[in-house]
């Protein structure tokens, strides 16, 4: 019997192997002469010993236990699970991209640098801000870059500021980033319309505030109509306004963060620009900024150097930036992600990007309308009943009170229908929240199908809530003991004998 939960380590049998080393063609000097005993490993690392067929089968079998975007609907709010065009993998794998060393001299990497330069220009146009750094590795890294830039900007002006404002609807990364950047978090409340509470903002926007971090549309999927007033309040006290680009998919070609008054923006290339999510990375989180922030951007910057009349432009890496915050990571950033993003932008063009946002908003509002119909709406009321942008939030309060099934139960039952659940229990200010983001790449039929499944789950719960409460029933495993996992963490495999010794 082949237990499909065995780890690759448990499949190991002494002497098996997949790898054959290339011929060792240099003089066979004993290792002891090259490496002193004190530096040498005494026993080999206990890596698995497996054949290539078994290795391939192991990971293929594991892969079959994952639900994935190419299989079905994945309306995970705030994550923008749109289709990943297959062309992107092919162009990213071209040897000129995939096999290019990051320290190759710029004169031998002109294609890569020009691609980055053009991408900087495209992102700048989408953001409505003149300067771009591609370097940050992810959205959270972009946020940190934004606050480090803010700090450098204020310090350059001789100012010491200590606090950063974040709305109570903010992604958890915002407050975590604030602390890492050495600031204190101050929460700003939400008004009845789901926007920033302006009175609360006015009271908290004092001279010691460095920045307001904002998502617009926000995590409720709502566009803050008062964005210009917000920007004015923030700028009046000399603070910067930071745009968390997690929700940029709603507004491309319709409104630009720079035109709304934002000073710094990050892009999630794995959301808006369709870098495949990879099971949790890689991503990339480039930033765009205004002129006053530009001197502090990280190094290196990709620049175009114009030669004498008629000569070809030369793309280069500029490290001579005396006010720069320095480096956020190694080399130039996640170039492979830039290739995919650039391919995406070239495929769609300016009009195509606008079409993306319009369709994303259309799909979200259509799905919102379907979920407001009788038989669903009374159990899953919309949290803020307004026209939404690319996503919306419903509350599972009705289902919990009237049917005895919680948001978690509905989510788990969706798994039996081969649909990925929406983001659950976020944002925190909505009771039993379900945050739904369909994206523009879903058809009307997929959206209708999702509403139908939700209706079926609710009808089933009215008959017998136990089915949802004990769901899922058809997945490789049933609900897992997460509390137990956290209480007695087992975070690596050990041979049985060692586990026995370790047990308390």
């Amino acid at each position, binding site marked *: 019997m082949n237990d499909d939960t065995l780890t*690759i380590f448990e499949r190991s049998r002494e002497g098996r192997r*997949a*790898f054959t080393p290339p011929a*060792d063609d*240099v003089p066979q000097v004993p*290792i002891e002469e*090259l490496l002193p005993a004190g*530096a040498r490993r005494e026993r080999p*690392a206990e*890596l698995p010993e*497996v054949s*290539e067929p078994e290795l391939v089968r192991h990971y*293929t079998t594991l*892969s079959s236990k*994952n*639900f994935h975007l190419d299989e079905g609907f*994945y309306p995970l709010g705030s*994550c923008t699970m749109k289709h990943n065009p297959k*062309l992107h993998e092919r*162009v*990213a794998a071209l*040897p*000129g991209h995939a096999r290019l060393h990051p320290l*190759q001299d710029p004169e031998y990497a002109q*294609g*890569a640098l020009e691609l980055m330069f053009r991408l900087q220009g495209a992102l700048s146009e989408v953001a409505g801000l003149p300067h771009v750094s591609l370097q940050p590795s992810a*959205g959270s*890294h972009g*946020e940190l870059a934004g606050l480090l830039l803010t700090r450098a900007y204020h310090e350059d002006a001789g100012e010491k500021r200590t606090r950063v404002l974040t709305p109570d609807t903010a992604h*958890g990364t915002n407050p*975590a*980033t604030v602390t890492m950047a*050495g600031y204190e978090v101050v929460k700003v409340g939400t008004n009845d319309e789901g926007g920033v509470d302006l009175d609360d903002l006015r009271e908290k926007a004092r001279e010691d505030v460095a920045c307001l971090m904002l998502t617009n549309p926000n995590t409720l999927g709502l566009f803050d109509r008062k964005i210009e007033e917000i920007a004015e309040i923030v700028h009046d006290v000399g603070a910067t306004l930071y745009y968390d680009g997690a929700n940029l998919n709603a507004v491309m070609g319709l409104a630009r963060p720079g035109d709304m008054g934002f000073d710094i923006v990050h892009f999630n290339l794995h959301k808006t620009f369709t870098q*495949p*999510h*990879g099971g*949790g990375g*890689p991503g990339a989180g480039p930033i765009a900024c205004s002129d006053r922030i530009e001197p502090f951007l990280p190094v290196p910057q990709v620049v175009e150097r114009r030669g004498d009349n008629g000569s070809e432009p030369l793309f280069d890496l500029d490290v001579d930036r005396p006010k720069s915050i320095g*480096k956020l990571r*190694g*080399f130039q*950033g996640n*170039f492979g*992600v830039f290739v995919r993003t650039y391919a995406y932008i*070239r495929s769609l063009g300016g*009009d195509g*990007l606008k079409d993306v946002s319009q369709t994303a908003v259309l799909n979200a*509002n*259509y799905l919102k309308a379907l979920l407001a119909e009788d038989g669903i709406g009374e159990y899953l009321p919309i949290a803020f009943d307004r*026209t939404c942008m690319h996503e919306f939030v419903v509350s599972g309060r009705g289902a919990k009170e009237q049917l005895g099934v919680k948001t978690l139960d509905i989510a788990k039952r969706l*798994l039996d229908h081969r649909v990925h659940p929406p983001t659950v229990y976020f944002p925190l200010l909505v009771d039993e929240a379900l945050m739904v983001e369909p994206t523009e790449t879903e058809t009307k039929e997929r959206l209708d199908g999702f509403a139908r499944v939700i209706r079926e789950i609710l009808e089933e719960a009215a008959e017998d809530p136990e089915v949802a409460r004990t769901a899922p029933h058809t*997945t490789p*495993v*049933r609900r897992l003991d997460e509390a137990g*996992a*956290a209480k007695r*963490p*087992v*975070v*690596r495999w050990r041979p049985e004998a060692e586990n026995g010794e370790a047990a308390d």
Partner: protein
Amino acid sequence: MLAAIGAGSLDQLFTDIPESVRLGRGIDLPDGLSEQEVHEELSALAGRNRHADEEVTFLGAGMYDHYVPALIDTLLSRSEFLTPYTPYQPEVSQGGLQVMFEFQTAISELTGLPVSNASVYEGPSAVAAAGYLAKLETRRTRLVASRGLHPHSRAALATHAAGYGMEVVEVPLTAEGATDRDALAAAVDDDTAAVFVQQPNFLGTVEELGELAEVGKSTGALIVCAADPLPLGILKPPGELGADLCVGEGQTLGNRLDFGGPSFGFFAASERFLRRMPGRIAGETRDLDGRRGFVLTLQTREQHIRREKATHNICTAQALNALAGVVYLSWLGKRGLVELAELMLRRTHYARESLGFDPINPGPVVREFAVRVPDLDGFVEKARAEGINPGYRLRRDYPEYEDGLLVAITERRTKEQIDALAALAAGAREEVPA
């Protein structure tokens, strides 16, 4: 669809956006292209890069030209691995979660430390994350870093430390290109949160990690070792030599060069830091029927629960790249990793001897070494004309090694290729009168 929404037009869905901030024109970018045209344009751009199959490259300095086995391409291109997100729903994510668990096990084995997370962005920012852990753990304000730490790691550490409010102090290298132990002893004090050493260091020197760790520990500082995971196949694991944390760049484990990313960073630690670690961690558990399963665990460390009190802000890790890492290590296997590392070790020493240049670090080196080259730029130019990229010019990061060249060796660099570089070196040595 508009009828179902109750809207008369698409524009009606956007009335929340004030007129004054609307773009009111199209996005000023070229029109979209067909798939074929995009492929052609991207191919043309790619064609203007000289990649590692078009020259014999001795370039390393943090990323290396290793062979990536075909099965990695096969497995990583599976939609089941490529297109899901973070495993928030463990019942339909057992594949990804088990991969993380296996990855953590492999990293723990390599580093000699009991716990590892499921990966972070990449190497230098992993070093910076270790600095943040040291701050949370010790509440001290100084970070002491060897000049043998990768220049990008030192830079990233300084950039991030400016945020979390710590000072970074540098310890010089000796005349043999190793971390100066006496200078380290002088640099650490009661306010030092962590000491950072790289193994092998940026010049390729095998550091006397145990001794350096001892010096650092004398004042209660945490010992952070940045390591290249491949040489750890034959080097004593940092965890056995006193490192509290071992972090690093994972590109060498089955990842492409990709002009610098994406790759992955790893982050391993002593047991006592488990609840202070950044990033995702997979743990083993049971389901309702008692079946073995895996979940993301210890999430109360993480930003989506702990918010401003989180141990780090990272949420997206590098799951796909870490998958390549654990598949690569399983492909090499227990014995293959040793064989590969020994091959690199022998070829590295062979290359250093064959080149005959004055070594900057004459002691033990495992995959890279630095030499002084008379008329360095002329030598590089000549080699490039022969289709050889001879390595990395150190002066960009180390003005003290004005004529220094850093030469990297992998299993792809054959004796024949090394001999070709050595022949050019012989010519260069002869041209310069002694």
